[in-house]
């Protein structure tokens, strides 16, 4: 004959014990392990809650049309230079040589953010001059919007020298963001929205590249031109200008930021 369930009810079993027994102790230990141990484990393994995170964003970069160029024209240390700063140009005196510059910024993927800067420079040279080294400084306006609004002015510096006089220097690289500390996750961050070179200053020290680079590298947020392979072309024809061709891309950047405001800059004391 087949059985079937007529009725069912739960059974409560009570285990009783007095307070001072091994069973009580066991119960307390189990309770502790259930609630406290996972918390400790979680805390030591950097927590349930993320304190640092990263995001990806393509910056809004604009070339600021500020340029400084120094080219060594002999092995004895003669040089010619040019900049977009009138005070500096006045100070250069006979070393001032005005090149022909053409600039184009392109938005290749039509997303409203510029992707590529094409910078072309032709430096006219005298008959007895050759180019042995080039220093080029370009300034950029750099903005990020996704988490905090970051507005800063930054630079790209190219320095190349060769024992053989050149006809052309080709640079193709990325303008990379360098972060020393995480960026805030909200608000306006514009403490570096200051000129990289103070173009209104009449003092020669304001244009000293050592001073410029020292104060720039003290910043926690900078950009650097990563151009691993500049191409130095030799064999300049007499009478032809020295050519500098730079392609600078504005790539997607990975940006570190603190997940919550409280954990910023405060280390764990546990």
């Amino acid at each position, binding site marked *: 004959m087949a059985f079937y369930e007529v009725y069912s009810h739960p059974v409560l079993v009570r285990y009783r014990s007095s307070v001072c027994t091994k069973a009580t102790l066991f119960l307390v230990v189990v309770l502790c392990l259930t609630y406290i141990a996972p918390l400790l484990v979680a805390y030591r393994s950097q927590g349930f*809650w993320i304190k640092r995170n990263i995001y990806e964003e393509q910056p809004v970069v*604009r070339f600021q049309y500020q340029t*400084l160029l120094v080219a060594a024209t002999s092995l004895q240390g003669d040089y010619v230079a040019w900049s977009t700063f009138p005070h500096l140009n006045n100070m250069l*005196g006979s070393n001032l040589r005005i090149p022909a510059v053409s600039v184009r910024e392109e938005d290749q993927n039509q997303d409203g953010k510029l992707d590529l800067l094409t910078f072309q420079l032709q430096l006219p040279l005298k008959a007895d001059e050759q180019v042995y080294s080039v220093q080029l400084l370009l300034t950029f306006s750099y903005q990020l919007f996704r988490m905090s609004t970051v507005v800063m002015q930054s630079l790209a510096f190219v320095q190349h020298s060769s024992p053989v006089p050149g006809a052309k220097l080709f640079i193709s690289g990325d303008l990379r963001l360098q972060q020393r500390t995480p960026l805030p996750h909200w608000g306006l961050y514009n403490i570096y929205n200051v000129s990289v070179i103070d173009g209104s200053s009449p003092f*020669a020290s304001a244009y*000293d590249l050592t001073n410029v680079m020292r104060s720039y590298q003290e910043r926690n947020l900078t950009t650097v031109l990563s151009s691993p392979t500049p191409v130095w072309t030799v064999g300049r024809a007499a009478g032809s200008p020295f050519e500098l061709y730079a392609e600078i891309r504005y790539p997607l950047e990975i940006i570190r930021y603190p997940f919550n405001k409280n954990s910023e800059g405060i280390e*764990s004391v546990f």
Partner: protein
Amino acid sequence: MPVEQNSKYSFTDIYTSTGPTTTPTQSFYRPTEQPPAAAEPLPVSGSIHSPVAGADRLCPCDENTAVCDINCCCDRVCNEEVALFTSCSISAVRSGSKQLCSQDVAQYTLWTTVDGYSELQSSVQKETNYDILCIQAQNRYDGLSHPSPRLPTDSNFDSLFSQFVSFIFGSELSDEVLPAKLQTLTGYQFGDVLATAEQSGQRGMFYLPAPGITADCVNNSPAAFLKDQSSRCSQHVALDGDCSSLRALRMDTYTNIQLFAGKNADAPVVPVDVASVILQSTEGTQTELAVSEGVNLLPVLITTTLCANVVLKVVYVIKYNSAGEVENGSVSLVLGFISEAEVSLQQEFQVMYIQGDVGGRAVHYNGNPGYVVGMPLITEDQDCLQGPHQRSPILFGLDYVSGCTLRLEDITNCSLVSQLILDVLRGPNSPQYVASFGNSPLENVLDWVPVKTNINPTAAQSCNIPLSIHLEIEWTKYGSLVNPQAQIVNIREVIETNRSSLALLSGGTSILPIRGSVAFIPVSAAALPGYRATPSINAKLPFDFFFPFV
């Protein structure tokens, strides 16, 4: 729902016909909303043409009108030239976006005939997009097109310009301002450019040459008020022309200066007096010239490779008062020789500002009270451990080593040589005491640490010659933990002499290296925790333990 209708109508006489009329579907991507015409465009500008839509009419590679573009198959003027084409640079022309569900595409294909010439076949096909999220009909003009630009008019030109122009060439600041702007304030402020009275009666600037983007001197870089500045830069000199004519080498360039006491136009003029002129010989020895009125030593070309009375160093001391007015200025110069026909001459320029209307002599501290890293040590004459000849000051906190080589050919009088070398190592007027703090006053005897000397006269057989001097400076952190001050507690001079015979030491070359070094040794004890009461166990969870709940 997109229905595939591969209605294909080939036509061979594409060049004579005006092309097929647009199929009804083309009205989809015709803009239903025409760009709003600007109210009052500027007189020269007309309205902007709306883009052509028909796929068969578009030809991106047609760059020359009335001339056939090679390999451009959609160029309508290519009739006979088609036979010479090798390929089509553009094989399909689309009129709208790729996301449309169906649209016309003009296809151009080349095929070779039996006799080797090319023949063009063109067709307009309806292309169907099978994406489920394709666009069936587009009834908004601005959905897939750029919005029509606002036409500039007289009224909105400035606002349009400022909206779109961000950075351009030629946006630099114009070059004027400088020679101190006339203001109501009479005195100069920090960073102001000092004004000078030129002989022509105009206002000029007080220049102090400094290195700019290279190490070369920028001679027209101004000096800033209250900014003490010291710079070294090189001046390119070719003697035959420059010796007497180059302004940067002439003494009167730096002495013939009339400073305006203040910024305003009627400020009194303060001359810069010559405080001292030091003449430096070609060997480097210096003699001070008696300063007489109207002294002017101009550069003279003595031989073709020797130019005398060339300015090597210029030091200005400018006294000012609390109102920011220049009280007086003085200049000290070092003149010397150039002994090469063409040379990059190093010149040194310095300007110091001293407040004149404070009582007593201002004493420069090297820390208050503790020494600051990088400041020179104070010796008893409030001067640094620096002699005139190429000796560097001992800077607090910076360990240092330097030296020279000494050629000892024949030692007849060993004790004399030994004493001479010891004098060279210690330098002239070597200090006996060093201040323990950066601001130790001379009167306070207990603040001065004696320099302990420790000569190691090791028992060498023949001759003891000092080979190295080593200064061991022990310093400690003094005061509170939060703001510790550096204090020198002990200073020891260790002089080592040779232990073996000199010939053995120099390896037969008779050249001995002589070395001087400085070491700073921190001797401060580690800070100890001190408990006033018995410590209790501070069992506290970290403050962010319950984050984010609390």
